[in-house]
Protein backbone atom coordinates (compact mmCIF):
# COMPACT_ATOMS: atom_id res chain seq x y z
CA UNK A 1 0.00 0.00 0.00
CA UNK A 2 1.27 3.50 -0.79
CA UNK A 3 2.05 6.18 1.73
CA UNK A 4 -0.59 7.22 4.26
CA UNK A 5 -1.62 10.87 3.83
CA UNK A 6 -4.48 11.21 6.26
CA UNK A 7 -5.04 9.40 9.54
CA UNK A 8 -8.26 9.84 11.47
CA UNK A 9 -8.52 8.30 14.93
CA UNK A 10 -11.53 8.27 17.21
CA UNK A 11 -13.03 11.41 15.66
CA UNK A 12 -16.02 12.66 17.63
CA UNK A 13 -18.14 15.72 16.91
CA UNK A 14 -21.27 16.95 18.67
CA UNK A 15 -23.71 19.77 18.06
CA UNK A 16 -25.08 20.48 21.50
CA UNK A 17 -26.46 17.15 22.70
CA UNK A 18 -26.51 15.63 19.23
CA UNK A 19 -23.53 13.40 18.51
CA UNK A 20 -22.90 13.59 14.77
CA UNK A 21 -19.63 11.68 14.59
CA UNK A 22 -19.27 8.88 17.11
CA UNK A 23 -15.70 7.78 16.72
CA UNK A 24 -14.38 7.62 13.17
CA UNK A 25 -11.21 5.66 12.42
CA UNK A 26 -9.89 5.77 8.92
CA UNK A 27 -6.64 6.10 6.96
CA UNK A 28 -6.32 7.59 3.50
CA UNK A 29 -3.43 6.64 1.27
CA UNK A 30 -1.78 8.63 -1.45
CA UNK A 31 -3.70 8.49 -4.74
CA UNK A 32 -6.87 7.03 -3.26
CA UNK A 33 -10.21 8.30 -4.54
CA UNK A 34 -12.69 7.71 -1.77
CA UNK A 35 -16.41 8.18 -2.21
CA UNK A 36 -18.23 8.81 1.05
CA UNK A 37 -21.86 7.76 0.80
CA UNK A 38 -24.75 7.49 3.23
CA UNK A 39 -28.15 8.98 3.93
CA UNK A 40 -28.47 12.59 5.00
CA UNK A 41 -27.62 13.13 8.64
CA UNK A 42 -25.15 10.27 8.65
CA UNK A 43 -22.24 12.67 9.20
CA UNK A 44 -20.50 12.53 5.81
CA UNK A 45 -20.34 16.28 5.24
CA UNK A 46 -19.37 16.92 8.85
CA UNK A 47 -16.51 14.45 8.50
CA UNK A 48 -15.23 16.36 5.49
CA UNK A 49 -15.56 19.71 7.25
CA UNK A 50 -13.64 18.50 10.28
CA UNK A 51 -10.69 17.54 8.09
CA UNK A 52 -10.02 21.16 7.21
CA UNK A 53 -11.30 22.60 10.48
CA UNK A 54 -14.38 24.29 9.11
CA UNK A 55 -15.85 22.49 12.11
CA UNK A 56 -14.17 22.18 15.47
CA UNK A 57 -14.37 18.69 16.93
CA UNK A 58 -14.44 17.48 20.49
CA UNK A 59 -12.55 14.22 20.39
CA UNK A 60 -10.00 12.24 18.45
CA UNK A 61 -7.22 13.30 16.14
CA UNK A 62 -6.77 13.98 12.46
CA UNK A 63 -3.26 13.84 11.04
CA UNK A 64 -2.24 15.10 7.64
CA UNK A 65 1.21 13.84 6.64
CA UNK A 66 1.80 13.07 10.29
CA UNK A 67 0.95 16.60 11.49
CA UNK A 68 -2.02 16.94 13.83
CA UNK A 69 -4.77 19.11 12.38
CA UNK A 70 -6.37 21.86 14.43
CA UNK A 71 -5.30 20.84 17.92
CA UNK A 72 -2.22 20.10 19.93
CA UNK A 73 -1.62 18.61 23.34
CA UNK A 74 -0.51 20.96 26.08
CA UNK A 75 0.36 18.72 29.01
CA UNK A 76 -2.81 16.72 29.44
CA UNK A 77 -4.91 19.48 27.84
CA UNK A 78 -6.09 19.53 24.27
CA UNK A 79 -5.73 23.02 22.81
CA UNK A 80 -6.95 24.51 19.57
CA UNK A 81 -4.07 25.72 17.45
CA UNK A 82 -3.68 29.42 16.65
CA UNK A 83 -5.79 30.83 13.81
CA UNK A 84 -2.61 31.39 11.86
CA UNK A 85 -1.54 27.73 12.19
CA UNK A 86 -5.01 26.52 11.28
CA UNK A 87 -5.06 28.79 8.22
CA UNK A 88 -1.74 27.31 7.11
CA UNK A 89 -3.08 23.76 7.59
CA UNK A 90 -6.27 24.52 5.70
CA UNK A 91 -4.20 25.51 2.67
CA UNK A 92 -2.86 21.93 2.60
CA UNK A 93 -6.30 20.59 1.74
CA UNK A 94 -8.49 21.89 -1.06
CA UNK A 95 -12.24 21.99 -0.76
CA UNK A 96 -15.10 22.37 -3.23
CA UNK A 97 -18.57 23.14 -1.92
CA UNK A 98 -22.09 22.27 -2.91
CA UNK A 99 -22.89 25.97 -3.43
CA UNK A 100 -19.61 26.76 -5.28
CA UNK A 101 -18.99 29.79 -3.04
CA UNK A 102 -17.06 31.71 -5.66
CA UNK A 103 -16.26 35.29 -4.71
CA UNK A 104 -18.86 37.17 -6.77
CA UNK A 105 -16.91 40.44 -7.00
CA UNK A 106 -13.88 38.82 -8.62
CA UNK A 107 -13.34 37.39 -12.08
CA UNK A 108 -12.78 33.65 -12.47
CA UNK A 109 -9.07 34.30 -12.79
CA UNK A 110 -8.97 36.54 -9.68
CA UNK A 111 -10.87 33.87 -7.73
CA UNK A 112 -8.19 31.32 -8.53
CA UNK A 113 -5.34 33.80 -7.98
CA UNK A 114 -6.39 35.04 -4.54
CA UNK A 115 -4.96 32.16 -2.53
CA UNK A 116 -1.83 32.02 -4.67
CA UNK A 117 -1.17 35.71 -4.05
CA UNK A 118 -2.17 36.04 -0.40
CA UNK A 119 -1.46 32.60 1.05
CA UNK A 120 1.39 31.34 -1.12
CA UNK A 121 2.63 34.89 -1.72
CA UNK A 122 3.54 34.20 -5.33
CA UNK A 123 4.35 37.11 -7.65
CA UNK A 124 1.41 38.25 -9.73
CA UNK A 125 2.46 36.91 -13.13
CA UNK A 126 3.34 33.53 -11.68
CA UNK A 127 -0.04 33.35 -9.92
CA UNK A 128 -1.78 34.35 -13.14
CA UNK A 129 0.03 31.67 -15.11
CA UNK A 130 -1.01 28.99 -12.62
CA UNK A 131 -4.58 30.28 -12.57
CA UNK A 132 -4.81 30.22 -16.35
CA UNK A 133 -3.29 26.76 -16.49
CA UNK A 134 -5.95 25.37 -14.16
CA UNK A 135 -8.81 27.27 -15.73
CA UNK A 136 -7.66 25.74 -18.98
CA UNK A 137 -7.59 22.31 -17.38
CA UNK A 138 -11.23 22.62 -16.31
CA UNK A 139 -12.09 23.81 -19.80
CA UNK A 140 -12.61 27.49 -18.97
CA UNK A 141 -9.46 29.12 -20.29
CA UNK A 142 -11.63 31.44 -22.37
CA UNK A 143 -13.73 32.48 -19.36
CA UNK A 144 -10.89 33.80 -17.18
CA UNK A 145 -12.18 37.37 -17.30
CA UNK A 146 -15.80 36.48 -16.55
CA UNK A 147 -17.45 37.14 -13.22
CA UNK A 148 -19.27 34.28 -11.45
CA UNK A 149 -22.62 35.89 -12.24
CA UNK A 150 -21.81 35.53 -15.93
CA UNK A 151 -21.14 31.80 -15.69
CA UNK A 152 -23.46 28.79 -15.55
CA UNK A 153 -23.61 26.66 -12.41
CA UNK A 154 -21.42 23.98 -13.94
CA UNK A 155 -18.86 26.56 -15.03
CA UNK A 156 -18.88 28.17 -11.59
CA UNK A 157 -18.27 24.82 -9.95
CA UNK A 158 -15.39 24.12 -12.30
CA UNK A 159 -13.83 27.49 -11.44
CA UNK A 160 -14.27 26.64 -7.76
CA UNK A 161 -12.47 23.33 -8.29
CA UNK A 162 -9.69 25.14 -10.17
CA UNK A 163 -9.42 27.60 -7.27
CA UNK A 164 -8.95 24.77 -4.80
CA UNK A 165 -6.63 22.64 -6.91
CA UNK A 166 -4.40 25.58 -7.95
CA UNK A 167 -3.18 25.74 -4.34
CA UNK A 168 -1.57 22.36 -4.99
CA UNK A 169 -3.20 20.68 -1.99
CA UNK A 170 -2.17 17.31 -0.60
CA UNK A 171 -5.78 16.24 -0.52
CA UNK A 172 -8.97 17.40 -2.24
CA UNK A 173 -12.32 17.39 -0.45
CA UNK A 174 -15.50 17.50 -2.54
CA UNK A 175 -18.71 18.18 -0.65
CA UNK A 176 -21.69 17.15 -2.82
CA UNK A 177 -20.35 19.30 -5.62
CA UNK A 178 -23.02 18.31 -8.12
CA UNK A 179 -26.09 18.46 -5.85
CA UNK A 180 -26.91 22.10 -6.65
CA UNK A 181 -26.51 21.66 -10.40
CA UNK A 182 -29.09 21.17 -13.11
CA UNK A 183 -28.88 17.56 -14.31
CA UNK A 184 -27.45 18.51 -17.70
CA UNK A 185 -24.53 20.32 -16.01
CA UNK A 186 -23.51 17.47 -13.72
CA UNK A 187 -21.50 15.66 -16.39
CA UNK A 188 -19.00 18.45 -17.07
CA UNK A 189 -18.12 18.71 -13.37
CA UNK A 190 -17.77 14.95 -12.92
CA UNK A 191 -15.54 14.91 -16.01
CA UNK A 192 -13.17 17.37 -14.31
CA UNK A 193 -13.08 15.23 -11.17
CA UNK A 194 -12.40 12.12 -13.24
CA UNK A 195 -9.46 13.91 -14.84
CA UNK A 196 -8.02 14.78 -11.44
CA UNK A 197 -8.45 11.19 -10.31
CA UNK A 198 -6.54 10.02 -13.37
CA UNK A 199 -3.72 12.42 -12.40
CA UNK A 200 -3.38 10.59 -9.11
CA UNK A 201 -4.86 13.32 -6.90
CA UNK A 202 -5.93 12.02 -3.49
CA UNK A 203 -9.60 12.81 -3.03
CA UNK A 204 -12.48 12.42 -0.63
CA UNK A 205 -15.86 12.89 -2.26
CA UNK A 206 -19.14 13.13 -0.45
CA UNK A 207 -21.57 12.25 -3.18
CA UNK A 208 -25.04 11.08 -4.06
CA UNK A 209 -23.93 10.03 -7.55
CA UNK A 210 -23.75 6.28 -6.99
CA UNK A 211 -22.91 5.52 -10.59
CA UNK A 212 -20.03 7.98 -10.45
CA UNK A 213 -18.81 6.59 -7.11
CA UNK A 214 -18.90 3.12 -8.61
CA UNK A 215 -16.91 4.16 -11.70
CA UNK A 216 -14.34 6.54 -10.29
CA UNK A 217 -13.78 5.68 -6.64
CA UNK A 218 -11.05 3.27 -5.66
CA UNK A 219 -12.72 2.87 -2.30
CA UNK A 220 -16.11 3.59 -0.81
CA UNK A 221 -16.94 4.52 2.75
CA UNK A 222 -20.53 4.06 3.84
CA UNK A 223 -21.43 6.33 6.74
CA UNK A 224 -24.30 5.35 8.97
CA UNK A 225 -25.47 7.30 12.02
CA UNK A 226 -22.11 8.83 12.81
CA UNK A 227 -19.95 5.76 12.32
CA UNK A 228 -18.36 4.05 9.34
CA UNK A 229 -20.80 1.32 8.41
CA UNK A 230 -18.78 -0.27 5.68
CA UNK A 231 -15.47 0.45 4.00
CA UNK A 232 -14.22 -1.35 0.93
CA UNK A 233 -13.85 -1.37 -2.81
CA UNK A 234 -16.85 -0.24 -4.85
CA UNK A 235 -17.40 -3.49 -6.72
CA UNK A 236 -17.73 -5.57 -3.58
CA UNK A 237 -19.77 -2.99 -1.72
CA UNK A 238 -22.26 -2.14 -4.43
CA UNK A 239 -22.66 -5.68 -5.69
CA UNK A 240 -22.54 -7.55 -2.41
CA UNK A 241 -23.09 -5.26 0.58
CA UNK A 242 -22.14 -6.98 3.85
CA UNK A 243 -24.52 -5.06 6.08
CA UNK A 244 -28.26 -4.78 5.84
CA UNK A 245 -27.97 -1.00 6.34
CA UNK A 246 -25.92 -0.57 3.19
CA UNK A 247 -28.17 -2.91 1.24
CA UNK A 248 -31.19 -0.83 2.30
CA UNK A 249 -29.42 2.41 1.47
CA UNK A 250 -28.44 1.20 -1.99
CA UNK A 251 -31.98 0.03 -2.64
CA UNK A 252 -33.40 3.49 -1.90
CA UNK A 253 -30.78 5.50 -3.77
CA UNK A 254 -31.04 5.87 -7.51
CA UNK A 255 -28.28 4.17 -9.44
CA UNK A 256 -28.15 6.21 -12.59
Amino acid sequence: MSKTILEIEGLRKTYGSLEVLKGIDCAVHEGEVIAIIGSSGSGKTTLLRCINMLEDFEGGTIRLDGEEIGYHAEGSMRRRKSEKDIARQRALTGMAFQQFNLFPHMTAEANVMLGLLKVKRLPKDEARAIALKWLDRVGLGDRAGHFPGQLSGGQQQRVAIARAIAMNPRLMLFDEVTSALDPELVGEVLQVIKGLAADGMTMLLVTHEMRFAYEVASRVIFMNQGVIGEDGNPREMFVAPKTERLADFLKTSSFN
Partner: protein
Amino acid sequence: MTPSFLDQLWLARNVILSGLGLTVSISLLAILAGSVLGVLVGLSLTYGNRLIRPIFRVYTDIIRGTPVLVLVLASYYVSSAVGVNLDPFSAGVLALAVFCSSHVGEIVRGGLQAIPKGQTEAAKAIGLTFGQTFAYVLWPQALRQFLPAWVNTAAEMVKASTLLSVIGVAELLLRTQEIISRNFMSLQFYFFAGALYFVVNYGIERFGKYVERKTAVPS
Protein backbone atom coordinates in the same frame (compact mmCIF):
# COMPACT_ATOMS: atom_id res chain seq x y z
CA MET B 1 -39.99 101.23 -5.07
CA THR B 2 -39.32 98.08 -3.11
CA PRO B 3 -35.93 96.43 -3.77
CA SER B 4 -36.05 93.35 -5.96
CA PHE B 5 -35.14 89.87 -4.74
CA LEU B 6 -32.17 89.71 -7.06
CA ASP B 7 -30.77 92.98 -5.71
CA GLN B 8 -31.10 91.67 -2.19
CA LEU B 9 -29.58 88.36 -3.18
CA TRP B 10 -26.61 90.16 -4.70
CA LEU B 11 -26.17 92.19 -1.53
CA ALA B 12 -26.28 89.05 0.59
CA ARG B 13 -24.10 86.92 -1.66
CA ASN B 14 -21.09 86.74 0.64
CA VAL B 15 -23.19 85.98 3.69
CA ILE B 16 -24.99 83.19 1.84
CA LEU B 17 -21.78 81.75 0.45
CA SER B 18 -20.11 81.70 3.85
CA GLY B 19 -23.21 79.99 5.26
CA LEU B 20 -23.19 77.43 2.48
CA GLY B 21 -19.46 76.89 2.98
CA LEU B 22 -20.01 76.24 6.66
CA THR B 23 -22.91 73.87 5.96
CA VAL B 24 -20.75 71.88 3.56
CA SER B 25 -17.81 71.82 6.00
CA ILE B 26 -20.00 70.70 8.90
CA SER B 27 -21.58 67.98 6.79
CA LEU B 28 -18.30 66.73 5.36
CA LEU B 29 -16.59 66.60 8.74
CA ALA B 30 -19.58 64.89 10.33
CA ILE B 31 -19.90 62.33 7.52
CA LEU B 32 -16.17 61.64 7.53
CA ALA B 33 -15.76 61.30 11.28
CA GLY B 34 -19.13 59.56 11.59
CA SER B 35 -18.23 57.02 8.92
CA VAL B 36 -14.84 56.18 10.42
CA LEU B 37 -16.44 55.83 13.83
CA GLY B 38 -19.40 54.02 12.29
CA VAL B 39 -17.22 51.39 10.65
CA LEU B 40 -15.68 50.69 14.07
CA VAL B 41 -19.17 50.47 15.56
CA GLY B 42 -20.29 48.14 12.75
CA LEU B 43 -17.27 45.88 13.16
CA SER B 44 -17.84 45.72 16.92
CA LEU B 45 -21.50 44.87 16.38
CA THR B 46 -20.60 42.12 13.93
CA TYR B 47 -17.42 40.60 15.31
CA GLY B 48 -17.26 41.91 18.88
CA ASN B 49 -17.03 39.44 21.75
CA ARG B 50 -19.64 39.02 24.46
CA LEU B 51 -18.41 42.14 26.25
CA ILE B 52 -17.93 44.51 23.30
CA ARG B 53 -21.08 43.72 21.38
CA PRO B 54 -23.67 44.66 24.03
CA ILE B 55 -21.83 47.92 24.73
CA PHE B 56 -22.09 49.01 21.11
CA ARG B 57 -25.60 47.63 20.84
CA VAL B 58 -26.69 49.95 23.67
CA TYR B 59 -24.71 52.82 22.13
CA THR B 60 -26.42 52.57 18.73
CA ASP B 61 -29.87 51.98 20.19
CA ILE B 62 -29.65 55.03 22.44
CA ILE B 63 -28.19 57.32 19.79
CA ARG B 64 -30.60 56.22 17.10
CA GLY B 65 -33.51 56.65 19.48
CA THR B 66 -32.56 60.25 20.35
CA PRO B 67 -33.61 63.25 18.23
CA VAL B 68 -30.61 64.91 16.56
CA LEU B 69 -31.63 68.25 18.02
CA VAL B 70 -31.34 66.79 21.51
CA LEU B 71 -27.88 65.43 20.66
CA VAL B 72 -26.80 68.85 19.38
CA LEU B 73 -28.06 70.65 22.48
CA ALA B 74 -26.60 68.02 24.79
CA SER B 75 -23.25 68.12 23.06
CA TYR B 76 -23.06 71.91 23.47
CA TYR B 77 -24.56 72.49 26.91
CA VAL B 78 -23.52 69.28 28.67
CA SER B 79 -19.93 69.58 27.49
CA SER B 80 -19.63 73.09 28.92
CA ALA B 81 -21.34 71.98 32.13
CA VAL B 82 -18.72 69.29 32.69
CA GLY B 83 -15.91 71.72 31.96
CA VAL B 84 -15.01 70.74 28.39
CA ASN B 85 -15.46 73.99 26.53
CA LEU B 86 -16.41 73.10 23.01
CA ASP B 87 -17.21 75.96 20.66
CA PRO B 88 -20.61 75.65 18.96
CA PHE B 89 -19.04 74.42 15.71
CA SER B 90 -17.09 71.59 17.36
CA ALA B 91 -19.97 70.63 19.61
CA GLY B 92 -22.31 70.54 16.63
CA VAL B 93 -19.98 68.48 14.45
CA LEU B 94 -19.42 66.07 17.35
CA ALA B 95 -23.16 65.57 17.81
CA LEU B 96 -23.72 64.97 14.09
CA ALA B 97 -20.72 62.62 13.86
CA VAL B 98 -22.00 60.55 16.78
CA PHE B 99 -25.46 60.41 15.20
CA CYS B 100 -23.93 59.46 11.86
CA SER B 101 -21.77 56.75 13.46
CA SER B 102 -24.76 54.93 14.91
CA HIS B 103 -26.45 54.83 11.51
CA VAL B 104 -23.32 53.86 9.61
CA GLY B 105 -22.65 51.21 12.28
CA GLU B 106 -26.00 49.57 11.61
CA ILE B 107 -25.49 49.81 7.85
CA VAL B 108 -22.05 48.17 8.11
CA ARG B 109 -23.38 45.42 10.37
CA GLY B 110 -26.25 44.71 8.02
CA GLY B 111 -23.97 44.68 4.98
CA LEU B 112 -21.52 42.25 6.55
CA GLN B 113 -24.17 39.93 7.94
CA ALA B 114 -25.94 39.73 4.59
CA ILE B 115 -22.92 38.00 3.04
CA PRO B 116 -23.54 34.22 2.85
CA LYS B 117 -21.53 32.09 5.28
CA GLY B 118 -20.12 30.12 2.36
CA GLN B 119 -17.98 33.09 1.39
CA THR B 120 -16.08 32.95 4.67
CA GLU B 121 -15.82 29.18 4.43
CA ALA B 122 -14.44 29.26 0.90
CA ALA B 123 -11.89 31.88 1.96
CA LYS B 124 -10.89 29.79 4.97
CA ALA B 125 -10.62 26.70 2.80
CA ILE B 126 -7.93 28.24 0.60
CA GLY B 127 -5.99 29.21 3.72
CA LEU B 128 -6.81 32.90 4.13
CA THR B 129 -6.57 34.27 7.67
CA PHE B 130 -9.52 36.17 9.09
CA GLY B 131 -7.86 39.51 8.35
CA GLN B 132 -7.30 38.53 4.72
CA THR B 133 -10.80 37.12 4.40
CA PHE B 134 -12.21 40.39 5.67
CA ALA B 135 -10.03 42.59 3.46
CA TYR B 136 -10.39 40.72 0.17
CA VAL B 137 -13.67 38.85 0.41
CA LEU B 138 -16.09 40.34 2.94
CA TRP B 139 -15.39 44.08 2.94
CA PRO B 140 -15.50 44.59 -0.85
CA GLN B 141 -18.85 42.82 -1.00
CA ALA B 142 -20.27 44.65 2.02
CA LEU B 143 -19.14 47.98 0.60
CA ARG B 144 -21.16 47.50 -2.57
CA GLN B 145 -24.12 46.36 -0.56
CA PHE B 146 -24.26 49.33 1.78
CA LEU B 147 -23.28 52.13 -0.57
CA PRO B 148 -26.89 53.23 -1.29
CA ALA B 149 -27.79 53.33 2.39
CA TRP B 150 -24.60 55.20 3.15
CA VAL B 151 -25.34 57.87 0.53
CA ASN B 152 -28.77 58.24 2.09
CA THR B 153 -27.19 58.81 5.50
CA ALA B 154 -24.81 61.40 4.04
CA ALA B 155 -27.78 63.34 2.66
CA GLU B 156 -29.49 63.07 6.06
CA MET B 157 -26.42 64.63 7.66
CA VAL B 158 -26.60 67.67 5.36
CA LYS B 159 -30.22 68.17 6.38
CA ALA B 160 -29.41 67.63 10.05
CA SER B 161 -26.69 70.31 9.89
CA THR B 162 -29.47 72.92 9.92
CA LEU B 163 -30.05 72.04 13.57
CA LEU B 164 -26.72 73.63 14.44
CA SER B 165 -28.40 77.00 13.92
CA VAL B 166 -30.02 76.65 17.36
CA ILE B 167 -26.63 76.75 19.09
CA GLY B 168 -25.53 79.73 17.03
CA VAL B 169 -23.45 78.14 14.27
CA ALA B 170 -23.73 80.51 11.31
CA GLU B 171 -24.50 77.89 8.71
CA LEU B 172 -26.76 78.38 5.75
CA LEU B 173 -30.08 78.34 7.61
CA LEU B 174 -28.99 80.80 10.32
CA ARG B 175 -27.46 83.07 7.68
CA THR B 176 -30.67 82.96 5.70
CA GLN B 177 -32.68 83.91 8.78
CA GLU B 178 -30.30 86.83 9.40
CA ILE B 179 -30.85 88.07 5.87
CA ILE B 180 -34.61 87.71 6.15
CA SER B 181 -34.61 89.71 9.40
CA ARG B 182 -33.13 92.60 7.44
CA ASN B 183 -35.21 92.55 4.25
CA PHE B 184 -38.32 90.58 5.33
CA MET B 185 -38.29 88.53 2.10
CA SER B 186 -38.92 85.31 3.96
CA LEU B 187 -40.61 83.43 1.15
CA GLN B 188 -37.94 84.11 -1.45
CA PHE B 189 -34.92 83.50 0.74
CA TYR B 190 -36.25 80.38 2.41
CA PHE B 191 -36.97 79.00 -1.03
CA PHE B 192 -33.52 79.94 -2.17
CA ALA B 193 -31.90 78.25 0.84
CA GLY B 194 -34.06 75.20 0.19
CA ALA B 195 -32.84 75.11 -3.40
CA LEU B 196 -29.22 75.23 -2.24
CA TYR B 197 -29.78 72.27 0.12
CA PHE B 198 -31.39 70.43 -2.73
CA VAL B 199 -28.41 71.07 -5.01
CA VAL B 200 -25.96 69.77 -2.40
CA ASN B 201 -27.98 66.62 -1.74
CA TYR B 202 -28.67 66.05 -5.40
CA GLY B 203 -24.90 66.22 -5.97
CA ILE B 204 -24.32 63.64 -3.23
CA GLU B 205 -26.94 61.35 -4.72
CA ARG B 206 -25.50 61.62 -8.25
CA PHE B 207 -22.04 60.92 -6.89
CA GLY B 208 -23.38 57.86 -5.08
CA LYS B 209 -25.04 56.57 -8.25
CA TYR B 210 -21.81 57.14 -10.14
CA VAL B 211 -19.76 55.14 -7.63
CA GLU B 212 -22.42 52.43 -7.61
CA ARG B 213 -22.20 52.11 -11.38
CA LYS B 214 -18.40 52.11 -11.31
CA THR B 215 -18.20 49.33 -8.72
CA ALA B 216 -21.08 47.22 -10.01
CA VAL B 217 -20.19 43.57 -10.60
CA PRO B 218 -21.15 42.39 -14.09
CA SER B 219 -23.60 39.54 -14.26
